[in-house]
């Protein structure tokens, strides 16, 4: 990572602080909020992909499941958000631990397929278990409730919450990458056999990474349901998982800025560009193809190599 510590943090903070002032209206700030929530999801997925080399195609589970848990406990069991939020995060994390045990039996494409299959099972359950989930009608939260007595109902106040969560996520993931654990995780990606010989328990390292990703995904999930005030099976569907994966790969796996950039670009294509381009769906597909072909490691590393050719494109 060539991100020179302090400058990166200063720029990122400045960006998040400037955004509400730079954007012309609450509508655009709302879109920025959507993008940042998904950026947290993409960052959590990148722990698996960028650090651990495990490509998951079922990560929307950790978006949708905690969203359902929070919505259900608040709407149907009348829990206060202070209780519902930790419960939802705990539940998402617990499920990630369970799914880690199942998924980690396979590697590479097997891992991708099993995460996909588990995601489809969760989607099917959400769709069909009408008594619990409301089926395709989903669960609504009429008004964004105050949390710890703080009113977050306005677009601006909620943006602050999401921006803070993103900063915390970035700091935690940054620390993870620089920690001995992070080094081990990257080791399991590149040299699993050697790691094993060195006495590292590869399975446990991968398991912890999976659960850590599930934890941050669950935080994105809780923010997601507080953002949209609605959750339905589409939140944990395969297209949602694929979208998260595309955000990571588009921006650049294994970087801190990549998933954030990817989340912003895809959200902008889906919400802003689609208002002006009828065939935005094709455009989205074309964007993947071009970025993956031209910059196989993603936009952020690709652009860096572009502007700093002397480094030879190597990180």
């Amino acid at each position, binding site marked *: 990572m060539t991100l020179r510590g302090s400058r990166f943090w200063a720029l990122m903070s400045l960006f998040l602080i400037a955004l509400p002032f730079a954007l012309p209206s609450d509508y655009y700030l709302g879109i920025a909020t959507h993008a940042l929530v998904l950026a947290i999801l993409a960052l959590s997925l990148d722990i698996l992909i960028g650090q651990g080399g495990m490509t998951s195609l079922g990560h929307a589970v950790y978006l949708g499941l905690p969203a359902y848990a929070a919505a259900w406990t608040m709407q149907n069991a009348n829990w206060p958000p202070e209780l519902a939020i930790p419960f939802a995060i705990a539940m998402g994390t617990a499920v990630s631990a369970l799914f880690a045990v199942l998924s980690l039996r*396979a590697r590479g494409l*097997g891992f*991708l*397929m099993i995460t996909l299959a588990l995601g489809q099972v969760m989607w099917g359950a959400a769709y*069909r278990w009408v008594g619990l989930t409301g089926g395709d009608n989903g669960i609504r939260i009429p008004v964004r409730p105050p949390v710890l007595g703080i009113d977050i109902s306005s677009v601006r106040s909620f943006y602050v919450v999401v921006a803070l969560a993103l900063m915390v996520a970035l700091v935690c993931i940054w620390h993870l990458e620089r920690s001995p654990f992070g080094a081990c995780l990257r080791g399991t990606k590149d040299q699993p056999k050697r790691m094993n010989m060195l006495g590292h328990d590869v399975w446990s390292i991968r398991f912890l990474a999976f659960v850590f990703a599930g934890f941050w995904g669950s935080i994105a999930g809780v923010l997601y349901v507080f953002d949209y005030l609605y959750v339905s099976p589409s939140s944990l569907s395969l297209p949602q998982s*694929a979208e998260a994966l*595309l955000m990571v790969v588009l921006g650049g796996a294994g970087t801190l800025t990549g998933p954030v950039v990817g989340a912003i670009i895809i959200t902008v294509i889906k919400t802003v560009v689609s208002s002006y381009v009828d065939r935005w769906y094709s455009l989205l597909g074309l964007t*993947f193809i071009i970025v*993956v072909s031209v910059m196989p490691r993603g936009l952020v590393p690709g652009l860096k190599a572009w502007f700093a050719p002397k480094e030879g494109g190597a990180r």
Partner: protein
Amino acid sequence: MQFWIIQTLNSLAMGGLLFLLSAGFSLIFGLMRIPNLAHGGLFMLGAYVGAMCMQWGVPFWLAAIAAGLAVGALGTVLEGGLLRRMAGNEQGQVLITLGISFIIADLCLLTWGGDPVPLDAPRMLRPPVFLAGFAFPGYRLAVLAFALIVALGLWLLLERTRLGAMIRAGVDDRLMARSVGIRVSRLFSAVFFLGAFLAGLGGVIGGPILSAYPGLDTDMLPLALVVVILGGVGSLPGALVGSFLVGIIYNFGTALFPDFAYVILFLPMVVMLVVKPSGLFGRVTR
């Protein structure tokens, strides 16, 4: 008793259809180590192209072959133009196929609109066949027969021809294949053509049952995935057995456990991946 007979027939007929869908998917998966996520899109495109040909008066079987060739040609172009440059970057290749599937879906919608386009079966195969007092659609039995013929043809191709030997070698060990002088890139083109051809052909053959409609691609792709996971990647017998297995699980599963209809295919997939990740006939260790 009748329940068991007719659902068995349903399972076999559906298995035949699924084999036509997934044989090409399995071949490409086995050789190139990537799930071609555009396979559902190619299948749908085949159905639309076949329907268009038939509207122009082309007979059914010719339309099926024409659609297969057209989709096969498209597959070859995509492989040569996009995927080959990404050799070694499997994740990138998967994403490119996903991008292609988006574009195919959108362009099909643009070209043929949103309403379903029916494909009529050949007239002689349309009437139901009466078996021991109940009716069964004649066309579905024809699909089953056709699938078995295709399976036989593919088996002969893989086992008895030079190309087949090269493909098998490539599936088993790519490095070894290259070191004995097989031009892997040309082989990839051939396999991609064959896989896409089968997808396009299958789209038309399946058309009278499924028809062509937006969303056919995303409905079919997961089925191909399940077949290949159960049967094993890159194995022709695996694809055949996997197809019939999925047909049986789907038909009996939804009939006996209707509450599990939405997850009936993915639960076995999870179990198989956990217990035997290489599938029943898998030769590739993943």
